[in-house]
């Protein structure tokens, strides 16, 4: 009930209206991901979303409604249709608490609240459990399990300015990485364009969905100058303030460079203006934002614009999983932000991640349960250090799991005995500054190389020891943050090295050196970072699965509208190709794509009819 899901404000995507289609959700996702999404995963994903929203509704989630009592869905950035299910501006909160409260119905679910998972235990290439510490006592605990699902969230805390909770430190990813599982597409980090300067507290995209606008110091709606305009009519989907997050954050960067941002004590900002919506609508639709703005920065959005700037928000990359939630390590599953399921590609669309946790959470849970039931492991069903009533084989297995855990526990407990080195906060802040400056919204080769060198140096310092004030065991949060920091430094290094190796600009990964353009010839591929222990990671690349939507130029605003129009004309001429609007979200046959491309050139829309039909 404390997961960072609780803070998600905006919405969860699931096709719900007659004027929307699965194909449109597929297209928006693939386009939003700048064609780095695995389309064979996006397709079943979009098909599964809506049922999960309905399931939550039936468990009590108070989704916002229309006057007749049916579900109300709203627009979100990069989405062609109204498809975001929301619960006022507390969507994640209501989803999480609905699920948590529903879980209370099942006494068979045993929770280990406030156990800190420190390491995966892997025996002969198979996961056999985890080493955890009971936080209240600091005692090491071995949780034996033939299947482990990581649901540890992203790694936004690697950066100085982020919207994330204190727990979003990424060690789940790093635990898998340490056991040879590659981390995929780690260079793709999403900056949310509207966070409070300094604290990074999130101001939901829902504000823009309701019609909020962004202006620079001259009061100009500057997004018009970055291929997202024209400004009017407003609001309309996939244009201006409802463009995708990567483009909005990049536009801020340029405005800031040009000196057209507003100075605040916490750094430069632009204005998010809601005033024209009127007091009633602001209070009714955006109560949490009103509250946050009034209390945290002393601004009343009814009478004044809110200062906002981009902050790190979401980690697109992570542990590669199949649609089933399985990773390449036997017995290990992952779901949510720590996973790289392949749906987000180079840039996640808002409200796809809340849908993702439902769809892939279910998949991972069901697959793991099946794996255990089908006897995936001799110790199946065993978990917590219970006395072994089973076979001698099972107890031998248990002993070997505990043996695996001992050196790991000893290593982490060893941190408590160290007298020298930097303080945790000092080392963490050094890492966050490097990430902020060199692995930011825009990156370049020299900066990334510098980041790699600095991070290697920080890892070396960490190995030499961090100095803890607190040497005790009970609820020692300084010690736990030291464990997190060790993992975070490895992730930061994987991120910087992955970014350095991607010599192109795509989605959220933008370079301002020689590689300012997308390069499909060389980089329509996933990045895989493999841990090399103490050395820098090894970077390899792997193919992206494209089933139906070939890469096109990714345009928004008027250009996208033109693209859609052209594609529609092509489509009409084509007389409703047989498989274009496939109900299951499966997309156009190759022949249709080729036709679209020939007719409309670089701007060809693969399945324009879907988008056209879905537009309001």
């Amino acid at each position, binding site marked *: 009930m404390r997961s960072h899901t609780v803070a998600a404000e905006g919405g969860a995507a699931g096709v719900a209206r007659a004027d929307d289609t699965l194909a449109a959700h597929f297209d928006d996702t693939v386009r939003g991901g700048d064609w780095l999404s695995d389309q064979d995963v996006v397709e079943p994903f979009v098909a599964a979303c809506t049922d999960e929203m309905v399931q939550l509704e039936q468990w*009590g989630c108070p989704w916002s409604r229309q*006057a007749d*009592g049916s579900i109300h869905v709203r627009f979100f950035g990069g989405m062609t249709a109204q498809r975001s299910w929301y619960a006022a501006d507390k969507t994640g909160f209501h989803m999480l608490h609905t699920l948590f409260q529903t879980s209370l119905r099942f006494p068979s679910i045993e929770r280990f609240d406030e156990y800190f998972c420190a390491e995966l235990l892997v025996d002969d290439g198979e996961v056999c459990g985890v080493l955890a510490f009971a936080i209240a006592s600091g005692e090491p605990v071995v949780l034996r399990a033939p299947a482990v699902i990581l649901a540890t969230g992203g790694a936004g805390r690697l950066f100085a300015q982020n919207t994330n909770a*204190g727990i979003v430190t990424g060690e789940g990813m790093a635990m898998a990485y340490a056991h040879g599982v590659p981390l995929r597409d780690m260079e793709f980090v999403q900056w949310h364009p509207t966070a409070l300067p300094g604290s990074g507290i999130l101001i939901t995209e829902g504000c823009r969905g309701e019609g909020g606008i962004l202006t620079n110091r001259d009061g100009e709606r500057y997004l018009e100058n970055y291929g997202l305009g024209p400004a009017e009519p407003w609001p309309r989907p996939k244009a201006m303030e409802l463009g995708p997050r990567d483009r909005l954050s990049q536009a801020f960067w340029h405005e800031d460079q040009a000196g057209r941002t507003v100075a605040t004590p916490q750094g430069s900002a632009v204005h998010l203006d809601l005033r024209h919506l009127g007091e009633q609508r602001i209070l009714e639709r955006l109560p949490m934002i009103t509250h946050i703005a009034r209390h945290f920065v002393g601004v009343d959005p009814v009478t004044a614009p809110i200062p906002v700037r981009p902050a790190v928000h979401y980690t697109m990359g992570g542990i590669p999983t199949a649609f089933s939630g399985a990773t390449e390590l036997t017995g290990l599953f992952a779901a949510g932000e720590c996973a790289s399921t392949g749906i987000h590609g180079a840039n996640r669309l808002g409200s796809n991640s809340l849908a993702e946790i439902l769809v892939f959470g279910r998949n991972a849970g069901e697959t793991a349960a099946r794996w255990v039931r089908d006897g995936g492991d001799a110790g199946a069903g065993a978990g917590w250090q219970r006395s072994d009533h089973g076979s001698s084989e099972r107890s031998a297995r248990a002993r070997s799991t505990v043996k695996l855990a001992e050196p790991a526990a000893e290593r982490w407990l060893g941190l408590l005995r160290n007298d020298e080195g930097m303080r945790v906060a000092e080392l963490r802040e050094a890492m966050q500054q490097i990430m902020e400056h060199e692995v930011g919204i825009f990156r370049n080769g020299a900066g990334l190389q510098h980041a790699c060198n600095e991070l290697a140096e920080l890892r070396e310092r960490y190995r030499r020891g961090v100095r803890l004030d607190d040497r005790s065991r009970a609820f020692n949060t300084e010690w736990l943050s030291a464990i997190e920091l060790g993992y975070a430094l490895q992730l930061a290094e994987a991120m910087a090295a992955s970014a350095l190796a991607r010599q192109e600009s795509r989605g959220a990964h933008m370079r301002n050196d020689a590689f300012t353009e997308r390069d499909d010839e060389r980089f329509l591929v996933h990045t895989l970072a493999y841990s090399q222990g103490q050395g820098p990671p090894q970077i390899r690349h792997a193919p992206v699965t494209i089933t139906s939507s070939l890469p096109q130029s990714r345009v928004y605003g008027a250009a996208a509208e033109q693209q859609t129009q052209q594609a529609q004309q092509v489509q009409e001429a084509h007389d409703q190709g047989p498989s274009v609007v496939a109900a299951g979200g499966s997309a156009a046959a190759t022949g249709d794509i080729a036709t679209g491309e020939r007719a409309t050139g670089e701007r060809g829309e693969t399945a324009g009819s879907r988008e056209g039909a879905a537009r309001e």
Partner: protein
Amino acid sequence: MSEPCGEIELQVQRYHPEHDAQPYWQTYHVPYSYDMSVLEGLQYVKDRLDGTLTFRWSCRMAICGTCGCMIDNQPALACHSFLRDFAPGPLRIAPLAHLPIVRDLVIDPSDFLEKMGRVQAYLQPQEARTPADGPYRQRPAAMAAYYDHAQCINCLLCYAACPQYDRDRSFIGPAALALAQRYNLDDRDGGRHARQPLLNSEEGVWGCTLVGSCSQVCPQGVDPARAINRNKLPSALDWLGSKLFRRRG
């Protein structure tokens, strides 16, 4: 941190189970700025002055419910209280009242979690339904009936404020009772009769003495006092019904 406004004195209650017989107060001096929360003050201490100071926190935006403590003797979220309102201090910060202390500002919430399960704070549908049946229709007025009570972030400020819980730890308490009522008032739910025996007991709604401090300290407007007292009428009717119709089932 933005421009400092000055310095504030924090007095924080400390307690370590491995070596302290009793809690004690420790003083720290912290520079603060206009937008700095009490949580950020505590983080400043932890990062720069004393790594042993222990407290829970997570979201920083008053929605995860993790950082509740007594701030100037009032239960409050540390992330949602601002140093500017207490400067120059001394500002006293202590763990939430009425709950067992684990260490420093960290309390043990397990009593509440157990009670949440006991009151069956989850939807019990009137008839089985699957996603294939589609969502329920729920008109805005029907949603409004329970909506406020569904905003509980489980921060336990109301337990720290409740005089009845202070007197009697068996009292189910404000948040858990409000959550039970949240489902009782939901027109999708059919679980009221299953919840009622416990709600109707001495541990349940009748323990509430109508002081209302739970609703005053609630950071989310859940209004547990209203939820509890709205339940007293159905509880009374159930009681009356049970007396009149006991033999007829």
